[in-house]
Structure formats: C-alpha cells, structure tokens
C-alpha cells in the first residue's frame, strides 16, 4: 500500500473541512446565553458562588445558614464555593462556557450590565413582589445599582463606604488635636506629620482604584454628589472645574508627601500593614478596613483608631452626608438555573435582616439592611459607620461601577499618570473628555 495523491488530497481535504466546520458561521459565544425560564425544581444541588474568602466569622455564619436552609428544604443541598481573589475571572469564564452557578455574587452598575445584556441573570421583580415585607428590611433606594430597563436583577449583600481612618495617638503626638474636617486641615496635617517623620497616609497605590477613590471623593466634595451623574449624562463636561480642581488637590497631597514612600507599589496587604502596625497616621480605604483593625496583632489598635467622613473642600458643593460607596455586592440567579424558586428562597433568607445582622456583627462589614443588633457587642466605631450609612443623603457609587470597564481603565491610567506627575490635572480631564467623546 502506498500513499497516493488522492489519499493526500483526502487527508488535506479532511483537515480543511474540519477547520471550516470550526469556523462555520462562527460569531463567538453563539452557544451560550438564552436558556430556560421556569426553574421550579424543588430538589437537587443549589450551587452558590461567593467572591473572596470568608471574613471574620463569615464562614461559620454561612455554614449555619446553609444547614438551617437545608433542613428547611428537604432534598436540597447547597454547594458553597468561595472563589477567592479571582472571582471576577472565574465568573466570566463560567459565563463563556455557560456554567454560571444557580446563585452568584456580583457587583452592580457597569459590572452587572454585561450579564444582563447576555441574558445571564433572571429578573427578580416577581419574586420580590411575592416576598411580602422582605424589601422593607433593606435601606431605601437599595435597588438603583441593580436595576436595568426597570427590572431588578439582584439583591444586595453588602454596602461599602470610603473613609478617612486615623490613628489618634499618632495625630496627637504630632500636636494635631482634631482629625481633619476640611481639605486644608488634611493638607496641614500631612505637612506636620511629614515634618515629624511620620508617614501621613497609607493607601493601596498598586491597584489603581483606591487612588481613584481619593480623586473621585475630592471631585464629589467639589461638585456635589450629582456631579458624576451629570457628567455621565452629558449635562456637564468632563472638563468641569470641579474635576480639574480635584486633580490639583490630589497633586497638592502628593507633593506634600501625603502617601507613604513607595506607595505606588503598595498592595492592600502592604497598605494595611503600614496602618495596622502604627507606621502611618491615616488610611484612606473602604469600610471593610474595620475588620482588619479588629483582627490586627495589636489588640489595642481598635481603641486608637477612629474615622472621619472624607474632608470637605473650600467652596465645594458637597456635604459630609454624601458618601462614596453604597450597596455593592449582590446576589443574582442564573437564567439557566433549574432551581430558581429555591434559589430565591436562599437569597431571601441570606439578605434578610436576621442573617444580615449576624453577618454585620460577626464581620463588621456594612450591610445594606436595617439591621437589629446589640450595639454594646461591637466597637463604637462600627455603630458610627452604621449610623452614617443610615443618615446618608446621597451616594456616589464607586466609579468602576459607574463607568464602563474600558472607560474606567482609561480613567485609572490617566489618574496614575497624574499621580506620577506626567500630566497636569487639566491635561488629565482634557484627555478623558476627548476619550469619552469617541
């Protein structure tokens, strides 16, 4: 037997056919999306993906909740997966392969939008409508971040706010008796601390978004909580003086040496360490920092640490009750879930006042619920956070949830270039405005 020309041709043709089949009419992703409605199966395994790792007592609280849920729903087994730090990537991979879990934790705004466009999450309105007073256990206006075309797609599990934490001892040793209430106070404190050789502010400079929080908080203080929404809807330009001024203020902070030496290389662990070991006097970060404070090696730290809302700027339109943050992480139900009704039962219990109160006191994470808890069992600083959240008059979501992902990358790039002194505040917003026009 020998290989004839025709055999070669056959082989070649075979491979060509294979390749053609692989490509045929091939808009990528065609096999996913869509999926069955209904989902009334009452038994089976309910998969539940949570981002990150358990904080404080979160693990044991969740195990107890799962156990009681399973005993209340015979035939249902809940499979909990903590996805660790790569939650975003894992969920996206699951989206591509069409294997989203029944219940998935995700973020609102521009993070959630692609999932809605992909028809990956179910609208929850009918479930919410049929759940009596469940909604009244949540803070007002909780749903804005998860509403698309008038339908609600997720129920919130946590709320976060950005704060200026400070170490009372370090400030008073420098002769600063009052925590900074205004930007000018903050700048003066920075200079005084530097003069004494104390690192003024610790911040995660590596990941980009914490610095973005400083910029956006300054912009909100300058222009009020409506500024960003006006800019997004085109009512005000991105070159608005309130934005440019925020850049100037950020540069003033950096030029005065506000952030730790080498701060652009600090990740969360490094930034945490500076503040928790008393090497930096202040820390700008999210409210989840409280948990790091109470679990620090220095058990007296919690008595030394307090916070103020982000300082006001001179002549700014902002008020102290406007907060950067708001309802953040949330739970949604996969369109393909065969157990959607059970999944809702699970979410309803998870986001109930009872469970949220346990999570709140067990982890010191802020929750978007009107929680009931014994205020004497937690550090006073946590009660202050809860009250502040309840009294908030306006929220600015984190910009990475407000801006489209690619626009947000552009913004953080520009913000980092500003921090490194490569561009001026005016150039930064000119370039961003030009980019957003496209």
């Amino acid at each position, binding site marked *: 037997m*020998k290989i004839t020309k025709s055999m070669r041709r056959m082989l070649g043709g075979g491979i060509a056919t294979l390749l053609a089949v692989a490509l045929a009419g091939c808009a*990528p992703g065609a096999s996913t999306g869509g999926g069955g409605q209904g989902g009334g199966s009452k038994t089976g395994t309910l998969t539940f993906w949570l981002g990150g790792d358990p904080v404080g007592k979160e693990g044991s609280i969740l195990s107890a909740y799962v156990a009681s849920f399973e005993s209340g729903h015979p035939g249902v087994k809940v499979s909990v997966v903590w996805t660790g730090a790569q939650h975003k990537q894992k969920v996206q*991979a699951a989206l591509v392969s069409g294997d989203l879990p029944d219940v998935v934790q995700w973020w609102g705004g521009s993070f959630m939008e692609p999932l809605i466009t992909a028809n990956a999450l179910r609208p929850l309105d009918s479930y919410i409508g049929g759940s009596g007073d469940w909604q009244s256990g949540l803070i007002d206006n909780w749903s804005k971040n998860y509403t698309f075309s008038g339908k609600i797609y997720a129920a919130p599990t946590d709320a976060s706010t950005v704060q200026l934490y400070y170490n009372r001892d370090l400030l008073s040793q420098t002769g600063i008796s009052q925590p900074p209430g205004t930007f000018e106070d903050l700048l003066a404190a920075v200079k005084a601390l530097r003069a004494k050789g104390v690192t003024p502010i610790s911040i995660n400079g590596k*990941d980009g978004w914490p610095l973005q929080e400083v910029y956006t908080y300054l912009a909100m203080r300058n222009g009020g909580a409506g500024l960003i929404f006006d800019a997004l809807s085109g009512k005000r330009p991105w070159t608005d003086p309130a934005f440019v001024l925020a850049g100037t203020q950020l540069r003033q902070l950096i030029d005065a040496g506000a952030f730790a030496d080498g701060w652009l290389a600090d990740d969360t662990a490094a930034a945490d360490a500076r503040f928790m070991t008393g090497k930096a006097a202040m820390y700008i970060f999210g409210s989840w920092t409280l948990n790091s404070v109470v679990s620090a090696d220095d058990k007296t730290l919690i008595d030394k640490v307090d916070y103020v809302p982000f300082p006001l700027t001179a002549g700014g339109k902002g008020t102290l009750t406007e907060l950067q943050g708001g309802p953040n992480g949330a739970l949604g139900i996969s369109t393909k879930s065969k157990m959607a009704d059970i999944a809702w039962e699970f979410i309803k219990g998870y986001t109930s006042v009872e469970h949220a109160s346990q999570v709140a006191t067990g982890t010191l994470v802020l929750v978007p619920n009107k929680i009931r808890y014994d205020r004497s069992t937690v550090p006073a600083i946590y009660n202050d956070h809860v009250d502040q959240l309840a009294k908030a008059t306006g929220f600015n979501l984190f910009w990475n949830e407000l801006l489209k992902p*690619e626009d947000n*990358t552009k913004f953080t790039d520009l913000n*980092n270039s500003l921090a490194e002194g490569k561009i001026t505040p005016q150039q930064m917003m000119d370039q961003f405005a030009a980019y957003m026009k496209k």
Partner: protein
Amino acid sequence: MIRNLRIWSLIFLLPGLALFIYIVVLPTIQVINSSMYNWSPGQVGTFVGLNNFTQMFADPSFRDALLHTFVLLIGAMIIQIPLGFIFAYLIFRRYIGSAFFQTVFFIPMVLSSVVIALLWTQVYNQDFGLLNSLLRAVGLGDLTRPWLGDSSSSLISVVVVVGWQYVGLYMLIFLAALQRIPHSIFEAAEIDGAVGVRQLKSITAPLVIDTLKLSVILVVTGAVQYFNLIWAMTQGGPANSSSVLASYMFIKGLQESRLGYAGAVATVMLVVNLILAIGLQRVFRREPLELG
C-alpha cells in the same frame, strides 16, 4: 515495507494529530476569528471587521505594552543566555562546588512564579528591602527608591527578575550541550596547545552553537508571551510602565470583558512571535558542525 511503515506511522500519528488540532489549532483559529468581533462573555459577538485592530494600534497603552515586550525580550536575552552559558561552563570545568551551584542556580526554576514575585517584591521594598538596605550600607542611599512603585524603574526591575528566574534553565541546556562534546576533542585541542580562552573560543563555543540558537528562539518566544511574574509583581503598573502584551491582553479580556479585543491582542502576539521565530530560523540556517 518502507511504504507500509509510512502508512503505519501516519496511522499512529493520527490520534496525536487529532488531539493537537483539537486543543491547539482549533482554539488558535477561534481566537483569530474572535478578534474580528465585539464580544463579551455570555454574549453573541457582533462582527466588526478589523475595528479591534485599528483601535488597538491607536491606543498608546498598546504601543507601550509592545515596546515593553521588546525591552523584556532584549533584557531576558542579555541576562539569560550569557549568564546561563557562563554558569554552565564553570560547572562543566568542575570548578569548586559545581554540584552545589548547579542546584542553587536551578532553584528558581522549581519555584512557583508567584513565590518568586513575593520574594522579589520584598527585595525591592522601599523601607526594608534587601536592595535598598544594601545601597544604604555602601553609601549609595541616594539611589534608593520604591523600585516597583516608580515608573522609571519598574520595568527594568521586573525584567531582572524574569531573567534571574530562567538563568538556571539555560544553564542546564548549555550544560547538557557541553557534556555531549566528546572528551577526546578537548584532549586533542590541549595537545595542540589550545587551552583556556583559546579553547573556549575555537573548540567549545562552535560546538554548542546549535544549542545557543535553540536558546535564543526559546527566550524570544517565551518573552513575547510572558505574563505571570509581571502580573504578580506590578500588574503592569504604575501607570502602565511595566505592562507587556500579555498583561494588556489580560486587562482587556478579563477586566474589561472585551474578549474580541483581547483576541486581537493575542493575534498580534502570535504574529509577532511567528515573525521573530521564522526570522531567527532563517538567520540561523547554517550547517551544523559534525561531531567527530
């Protein structure tokens, strides 16, 4: 008989070929195909032609990443190949402690990249890092800086680590090549009076030239795709100062959910790699020296 052998060899190759097509060729084609779509996870892509490419070439961040990739490539070449050869030669000539050094130089190869990244992040630390402490100790305190947090030093800092990580591999490759040279050649050379540098230049180096070519191609193709250490150490920052093509692709694909665009970046990486690999092979095309 011979022809039968060819048939049979073809038949036995088929399962491997099928697997190769399924897990390498088809996905590659799918990626190239996806580069012409606007496509997010879970969505059906919309065809946009070469739009992703024009957008990409207009993006300064992409041009930075491309430039940094070439810096990484050249840096890796400068560090890995000469050092790999020198270490291999020293060990081959059995200077003191060669078994010990062979192990020591190879250790980075068996460490996970993330471990290496953590290790070197400590070395580069502004406050307590080894490098800054060393500089201060020898009176060069002015040179201290947050090596990874300063856009003027971040790229070179990660390039050094990438180089360091793979020196051991090239040492091993060169060592294997050196050990393949028949001992009689060295003896003959010594009788003819070729010792030391002369021997290295006229006998040893020409006999490992093929290994050198292989190593260059390995370094180049590896550098164009390099990702993990850079991501673990700087995520391409600050301000994109240490970004490379792969980190740019990761940001576009998995942080911005633009899989089609990321596919376009991957396509560019593939093309760059092919051009370099084929180009290098042409340059290197020379008859190998026959070993006696």
